[in-house]
């Protein structure tokens, strides 16, 4: 089930809210757990058992780590089980097909369906066992509370990657208030609008481009820019919805995006994009490997390990690895000398540098395999002999120009800044307008959902 569906919005969510607030405090986590398992069951009936098994493994490993004097063994065991399951379900066919290509063998592919959200909940469970192992988190002795943390439906399938320590306290006791719920509603509805009105609309352009026999260089750029905006509004919209839903139920989830397209360097971009993943790799991979407090060679190794894993986490294809390593190279160059060089350049040049890299990187990200990467990049730069433009390109440009403009402006901090400025001067008026605006937005989104069946979600495959 996805948030931007009628089943979720007008059946699941209201039913869960009624149940959740009807039961006493001690039963609230149980309600959330049951609701979350049902939420997962709807999308993945069989794999719900895998998620329960993973939760049980994390829970038992937590107890083991708590009881063990030498915590390395149980922590290593939790990593083997977690990464083992992730590797089996997500990466088996990648390894098999590469072995087949390398040694000419004919090992059959497993063709396993990817369990939704496995990359997210595996990392959440590992954050728990790592932190218990390091003494940063207490062992959770209540399985319901622990499983509720792992399965919590607001962040189950697409993050943000909520570490156990982020909500450890809230799992025991949390505040339910109109403030929390009202602000949660705002965040949720705005996220829903980002997802349905912008991301889904731009996705239609992507589909039109994909099936068009009349591609041109300009159309390729239009599609690439639209995809870049789509993936931002898709993922950040989903994160907003998750954070908003969490807030309704009294949880404070970490932020996942901070207007990444205003960055002036790739280093800054990754401080603003999918922040919970970046910080997870920083805290659980990069720093344990020694971070930058090692020899230069090891430091370079650490950077590439992290960015190899970042790419690989996103998908079991070489283009994802190339995508991750591209950022590894760029970050390394920026750390070595490029950042100083960029600092001397005008601001707009630095923005252009970042956006050019990001757009190209998402072309690589969007490809299905390396051969398509080469084709797409050749098309983009006119190497494959495409015409520059044609009538259908101009039509699509006109059709989506305003959406792209809204997307471009909406991806900057301009609107939040403007709202805050207005709030300072006309706070009371804004407080009247806001609920009306949110209600109108919710109804408009509902219209989009009711009318159309085109509602893909990009991060499902992770």
């Amino acid at each position, binding site marked *: *089930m996805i948030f931007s*569906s*009628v*089943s979720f*919005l*007008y*059946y699941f*969510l*209201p*039913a869960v*809210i*009624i149940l959740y607030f009807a039961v006493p405090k001690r039963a609230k986590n149980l309600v959330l757990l049951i609701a979350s398992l049902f939420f997962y069951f*709807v*999308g*993945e*009936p*069989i794999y719900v058992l895998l998620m329960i098994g993973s939760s049980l493994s994390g829970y038992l490993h937590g107890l083991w780590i708590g009881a063990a004097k030498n915590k390395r063994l149980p922590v290593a065991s939790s990593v083997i089980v977690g990464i083992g399951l992730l590797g089996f379900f997500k990466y088996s066919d990648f390894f098999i097909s590469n072995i087949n290509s390398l040694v000419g063998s004919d090992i059959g592919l497993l063709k396993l369906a990817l369990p939704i959200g496995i990359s997210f909940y595996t990392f959440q469970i590992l954050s728990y066992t790592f932190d218990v192992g390091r003494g940063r988190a207490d062992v959770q002795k209540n399985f319901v509370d622990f499983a509720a943390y792992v399965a919590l439906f607001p962040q189950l399938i697409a993050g943000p990657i909520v570490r156990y320590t982020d909500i450890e306290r809230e799992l025991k006791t949390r505040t339910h208030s*109109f*403030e929390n*719920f*009202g*602000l949660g*509603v*705002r965040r949720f*509805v705005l996220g829903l609008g980002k997802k349905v*009105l912008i991301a889904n*609309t731009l996705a239609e352009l992507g589909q039109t481009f994909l099936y068009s*026999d*009349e591609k041109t260089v300009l159309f390729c750029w239009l599609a690439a820019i639209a995809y870049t905006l789509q993936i931002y509004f898709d993922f950040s919209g989903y994160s907003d919805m998750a954070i908003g839903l969490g807030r309704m139920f009294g949880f404070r989830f970490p932020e996942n995006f901070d207007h990444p397209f205003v960055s002036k360097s790739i280093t800054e971009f990754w401080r603003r994009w999918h922040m919970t993943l970046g910080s997870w790799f920083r805290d659980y991979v990069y720093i344990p490997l020694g971070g930058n407090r090692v020899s230069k060679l090891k430091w370079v190794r650490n950077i590439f390990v992290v960015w190899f894993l970042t790419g690989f986490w996103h998908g079991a294809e070489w283009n994802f690895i190339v995508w991750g390593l591209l950022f590894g190279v760029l970050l390394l160059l920026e750390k070595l000398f490029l950042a100083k060089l960029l600092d001397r350049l005008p601001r707009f040049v630095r923005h252009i540098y970042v956006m050019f890299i990001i757009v190209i990187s998402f072309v690589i990200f969007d490809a299905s395999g390396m051969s398509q990467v080469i084709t797409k990049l050749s098309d983009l730069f006119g190497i494959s002999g495409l015409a520059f433009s044609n*009538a*259908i390109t*101009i*039509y699509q440009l*006109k*059709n*989506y*120009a*305003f*959406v792209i403009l*809204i997307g471009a402006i909406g991806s900057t901090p301009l609107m939040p800044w403007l709202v805050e400025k207005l709030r300072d001067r006309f*706070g*009371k008026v804004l*407080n*009247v307008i*806001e*609920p009306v605006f*949110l*209600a109108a937005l*919710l*109804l*408009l989104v*509902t*219209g*989009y*959902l*009711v*009318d*159309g*069946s085109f509602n893909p979600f990009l991060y499902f495959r992770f």
Partner: protein
Amino acid sequence: MKDRTRNIIQTVGFLVLVIGIMIVNICLPDTELSVSERRKLKQFPLFNADTVTSGRFFTEFEDYALDQFVLRDTFRSFKALGRFNLLMQKDNNDIYLVDGSVYKLEYPLKPNMIVGAANKYNAMADMYLEGLNLYYTIVPDKNMFVAEKNGYPSLDYALIEKLMAENVKDMTYIGIYDKLTLDDYYRTDIHWAQENLFGVANHLLSSMGAEGNLKKEDFTAHTLSPFYGSYYGQSALAVKPDVLTYLTNDILDGCTLHDYQTGKDSPLYATELFGGMDSYDVFLSGAKALLSVTNPAVNNGKSLVVFRDSFGSSLVPLLAMEYEKVTLVDMRYIFPNMIGEYIDFSEYTDVLFMYNSIVLNNSAMLR
């Protein structure tokens, strides 16, 4: 208003909306049909262990929930308004509006489909039509008059003619592009309006050796309104409806419409179908595989077979004015080898293939 009050209003407003809509959706009885979309709506899916564990129940439930959503058409209007007025997009589900008329994008041109249509004409001719006078025409869809002019992707209608001419064997082409203008089509429907087809009908008749001398004043116009065409519902916007006009006179009143499927005879116009799923069905009772119109007032030895789509339904009454018998075959609804079981082609003198450009561009639908 204080922040706290705003938060309370936001909380209560959200809960009222989502819980309220949930309750109404559960309580409202399900509907069978969507008149505006001209389709059956999804019903509550089968609920058992197999459908639940396979996930099929939940997938089908979402489809059901979308179809049975309270005030569905109103919500669809919200979306259309959002797309056109908020996001400034040029079309909504391929539907676009120009000067209060509704159009549906048809793009791109698929040459293989056009050639495929020509081949199906040829196969039909080889199978049944030897020795008859064979003609074909191309009915342009109304995009031809507005799409390109207004910046929308448009089919290359000249190329359709060229491809057909190159591939259709031993048939005479009767071009009607220049006999039509945008005003000859309904604003809310895909079709042309019967009262505007005298130019087309006379040109076709004279090209096929008949007189082609029909005059508007020889007919009585009857109107039915409001006519909400098929694009009206798809647009989900409050577009001004059309008026449906059908033409009669003593000769047409004396004609008989025979339906080969049911074996029943009826008048040419089924006015009782107006206001139903498709009001255009008034003309010759709508989509039928095999029909014939017998005109006892004509005795010129000429009879015609028209291979046609729904555009033929409103045109054929005019053609029937100068034929003893006109038989209509819709190649979308009957396999070629079945046609011979119902029709003896040796009884006819002329054959006209007339499909509109959209059918030609999607000729896989022809059997």
